[in-house]
């Protein structure tokens, strides 16, 4: 393991130290990544083109719909050369959840943090619980961890079809394709789907018609299946999207046999549905690549991804930072960082100490600190690390050269990384460290799954690491992730049955009175590593004298929606849009719908509610900002 940019070295045990003799080793002018194009070069190129080309348009898509939350994308499009020359992703909402959490009792964190996002429901409640447990030293009993895994697997069962059929699906529907690319329609009518025997649509045109919003069969079925999975979730949590059952040290679910059986009875239908889902999202890329191979570049960006893993081993997870590399690698989905297609590490501590967040282009005041020079194990930390971060919100005017978004800029080893649920497949497949399973195998370059029989028969399927990560592969990966998550649901259910059979009923480590007494007085730092429907999720916590003194959430869409960093590297959405060729049919510039950009953006499954309230500092500073703002009042 080594960092490419940060001046950090690792010994043979994996312990990290700062390379000696470098003054200000973390300064942005000292440790610099290799940057392809600077902002100045990009601007100069656009100006050159503008001067001789009348078909360059500056357009602002605000709001981008069919994503969760509020987002705008500004593009500079060259309609003659059919390219997006520039792109800025703008998160347009701020709510200040961490500000509200700071200064509170740690017992408030789970229910308050849960409300950070209502799309990926329980994920924030769980991440908060992991952070508190780690800080307070509470280890949940195995059944508590199993219930969490069952909940969170079922949660993905809602999240993936919602995205594929309600949000992204319409972009590939008859109504859209006929408008933006009428030349594809006769091809679609003549194109027999290779997977027709699984999903039941004879031609691509039939399939596209089924993707039409509200009236299409696939759209309606997708909505129904989100409900079925949500029923599975609320059997355990009571409520959706905000669960009522997550407690520090476990869950408060009354895990009756009826609850387990009802959960089981719904899983069978889901495996049938998963087969159809994978068949649909295998056929769509095949058709588009055949129609025009440039679709390989829609939303393309290099294979740089990150994921902290998901779904713990109930017997390995002990909530400690000291053992996190051991229990992290035993997760159903392996933690990891892939840069340039190469897996660099599967250790959570490496993931943690390489993490930094910048606000050069975000509506916050800079306030990195050096409060923690190292993590609890002595590995060096950047002043930009979430434990050191105290970022202060400051609303202001939009300026592409300065600040333009409420999202901030997370980077790992100062590289632009992407988060996605498909990253779980990528890490797990390449690392080959996943626990034994009769349904799932990691081969190094693929994931092999056995789909258990439902009404349709048992079937083996394989997801292969794609050569190019683009919009189509993200959606395909999401369909396979649906199966992955539902197999984790099944494995976890089997664990729950096993524990139940052995008379195990304990789902939480402490009762409410013990919990109150367990809150420590000294200063603690911790991190909850978890996942969301879109991948990566972390909650970094600092508590002191028994209360929360700093709370920092980093979500997958913060990562993906990030603006430029201090070295002008665009964020993943921005980069993906700039790589996207404009393939829609236009007889006139006014026909330009920007569908190719929308496909690129939506393939990330943007979820802005929890992106844009992140990273805030002390409330009173904001009040000062506001006081001068209101004039006479």
């Amino acid at each position, binding site marked *: 393991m080594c960092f490419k940019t940060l001046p950090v070295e690792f010994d043979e045990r994996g312990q990290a130290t700062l390379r000696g003799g470098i003054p200000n080793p973390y300064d942005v002018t000292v440790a610099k990544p290799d940057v392809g194009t600077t902002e100045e070069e990009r601007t100069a190129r656009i100006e050159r083109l503008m001067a001789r080309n009348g078909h360059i348009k500056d*357009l*602002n*898509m*605000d*709001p*981008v*719909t069919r994503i969760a939350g*509020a987002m*705008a994308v500004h593009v500079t499009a060259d309609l003659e050369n059919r390219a997006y020359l520039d792109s800025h992703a703008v998160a*347009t909402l*701020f*709510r200040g959840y961490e500000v509200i959490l700071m200064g*509170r009792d740690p*017992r*408030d964190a789970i*229910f308050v943090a849960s409300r*950070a996002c*209502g*799309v990926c429901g329980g994920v924030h409640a769980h991440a908060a619980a992991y952070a508190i447990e780690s800080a307070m030293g509470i280890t949940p009993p195995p059944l508590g961890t199993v219930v969490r895994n069952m909940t969170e697997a079922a949660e993905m069962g809602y999240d993936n079809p919602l995205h594929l059929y309600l949000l992204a699906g319409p972009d590939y529907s008859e109504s859209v394709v*006929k*408008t933006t690319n009428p030349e594809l329609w006769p091809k679609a009518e003549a194109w027999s789907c290779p997977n027709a025997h699984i999903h039941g649509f004879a031609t691509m045109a039939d399939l596209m018609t089924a993707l039409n*919003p*509200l009236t299409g069969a696939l759209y*309606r079925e997708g*909505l129904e299946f989100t*409900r079925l999975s*949500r*029923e599975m*979730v*609320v*059997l355990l*949590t*009571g*409520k*959706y*999207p*905000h669960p*009522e*059952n997550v407690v520090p040290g*476990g*869950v*408060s*679910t*009354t*895990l009756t046999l009826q609850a387990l059986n009802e959960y089981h009875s719904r899983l069978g239908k889901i495996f049938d549905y998963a087969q159809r889902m994978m068949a649909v999202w295998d056929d769509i890329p095949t058709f588009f690549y055949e129609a025009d191979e440039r679709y390989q570049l829609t939303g393309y960006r290099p294979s740089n991804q990150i994921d902290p893993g998901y779904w713990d081993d109930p017997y390995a997870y002990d909530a400690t930072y000291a053992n996190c590399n051991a229990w992290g690698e035993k997760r159903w989905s392996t933690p990891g960082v892939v840069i340039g297609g190469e897996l660099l590490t599967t250790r959570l501590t490496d993931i943690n100490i390489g993490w930094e967040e910048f606000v050069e282009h975000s509506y916050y005041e800079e306030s990195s600190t050096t409060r923690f020079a190292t993590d609890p194990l002595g590995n060096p930390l950047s002043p930009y690390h979430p434990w050191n971060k105290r970022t202060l*919100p400051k609303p202001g005017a*939009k300026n592409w050269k300065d600040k333009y978004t409420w999202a901030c800029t997370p980077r790992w080893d100062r590289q632009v990384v992407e988060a996605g649920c498909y990253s779980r497949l990528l890490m797990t497949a390449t690392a080959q460290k996943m626990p034994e399973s009769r349904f799932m195998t990691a081969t190094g370059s693929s994931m092999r799954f056995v789909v258990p029989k439902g009404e349709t028969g048992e079937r083996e399927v394989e997801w292969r690491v794609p050569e190019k990560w683009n919009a189509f592969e993200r959606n395909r990966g999401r369909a396979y992730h649906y199966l992955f998550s539902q197999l984790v649901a099944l494995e976890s259910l089997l664990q729950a049955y096993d524990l139940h059979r052995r008379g195990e009923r304990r*789902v*939480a480590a402490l009762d*409410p009175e013990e919990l109150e007494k367990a809150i420590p007085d000294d200063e603690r730092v911790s991190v909850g590593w978890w996942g969301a429907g879109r991948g990566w999720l972390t909650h970094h916590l600092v508590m002191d004298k028994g209360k929360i003194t700093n709370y920092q959430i980093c979500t997958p869409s913060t990562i993906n929606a990030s603006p430029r960093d201090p070295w002008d590297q665009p964020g993943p959405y921005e980069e993906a849009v700039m790589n996207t060729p404009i393939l829609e049919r236009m007889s006139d510039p006014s*026909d*330009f719908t*920007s*569908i190719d950009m929308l496909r690129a953006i939506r393939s990330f499954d943007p979820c802005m*509610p929890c992106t844009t309230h992140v990273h805030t500092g002390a*409330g009173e500073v904001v009040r000062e900002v506001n*006081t001068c*703002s*209101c004039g006479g*009042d």
Partner: protein
Amino acid sequence: MADRQTRTPALQARTPAQELLDALGPVERFHDTEEVGAFGLPSGRVTEDMLAGGDETTAATRFGPLQKIHVFWFAGMSCDGCSVAVTGATSPSVESMLLGAHPGLPRVVLHHPVLNMESGPHYVRAAEQAMAGTLNAPYAVVLEGSISDELAAYATGGYWSGQGEEPWGPDGEMRPVTASEWIARLAPNAAAMIAIGTCATWGGIPSAEGNPTGAMSLMDWLGKDYRSTFGVPVVNVPGCPPIGDNFTETVAAILYFLQGFGPLPEFDELGRPAWLFGETVHRHCVRGAYYEEGTFAQEFGDPECLVEVGCWGPVVNCNITSRGMINHVGGCMNAGGPCIGCTMPGFPDKFTPFYKRPPGSFASTTVSRMVGSVIRPLRKFSNNHLNREVRWDRQGATPSGFGREKAEPSALAEINHKFYDMLRRSGDRGKAKADVWGKRDEAPSGGSPNPRI
């Protein structure tokens, strides 16, 4: 600044909404449609037109005056959880409402950022038309999420919660338009203003202590005197998240009333649908009887009443224990989650820290423990008796292969049960002396007088 948030509504000459509009000034123009072209319109048509097929109705099947109604859904400081909850609704479901699957329901044209096909300027077009008075039907506005204090952000040239942009800058240049501004501009001519979820109804988590954004509820924003064009104050459907069905049912009920066939929906003094929020959640709680018998969960996961692990159900207005969360499945206490009061105006600050028993429960749990210590043994005694066939009583044996561990009832218990049965059958008209001439004399009830074992 701080003053505006804390002073009482009675002292407020203008509503916060009016203050924002005064600061921003009137608007004169909207997007130039020609300049926009097809940008953001990949289906060639807006969602309203795509779904227009088959919506022609005659007055007879329409039941009432409304052919169509627009619903503008705005997300303020929201987590989108209310939208998610509504997509889970089943009675009625959102897609059935949009496709008009309910007799008498006018066509609902929903403008929702998570569902619509069009993006950018085409998405905000209908809201522009509503402001200009050129929309082709009446409209209602739904707010999810709290209203943010945009005056604070505006003064530094920014915003908290933006949705779309309009050429409303000082010289007609584009500037971000906030959800708060849209609401303030659309409210006066709306047929109804509906707040969904606890953020929009009561401020919720974004307005919790220590918040930086000055978040508030829709009621606080529009003021006590607000009335829609149909004369209705702000309607509130709380919950964090709300039960999806509570919302879709309320909207449907209002529409049925407007069409002339539904009864006037009753709202309580805080604008909640009274038939949904009139009871405390404890009254329909599946664990309520544990409270009555004085048995309480002590650890998380225990099956009894949750009040001592932090449940506020006895003092919270909600219907989740009877309705469930989705498709009648789930419900907080049903699954083991203590009520944290998420439907209440006092949420969250009057319920924290969580996982701690409400102090008010000490008196009532003590009383119920005392009463329960008497009631429980009596009930157990009767329950044992009722767990026996009459035949087993007669033959003095229970032929269960599962090995009933308890011995047959003692002589004293037999006497007690006989006495109890006597009490039960007092007034039983079957004991009257009339001759049952319609049937022959058979074995007495309970089977053959000489049972074979």
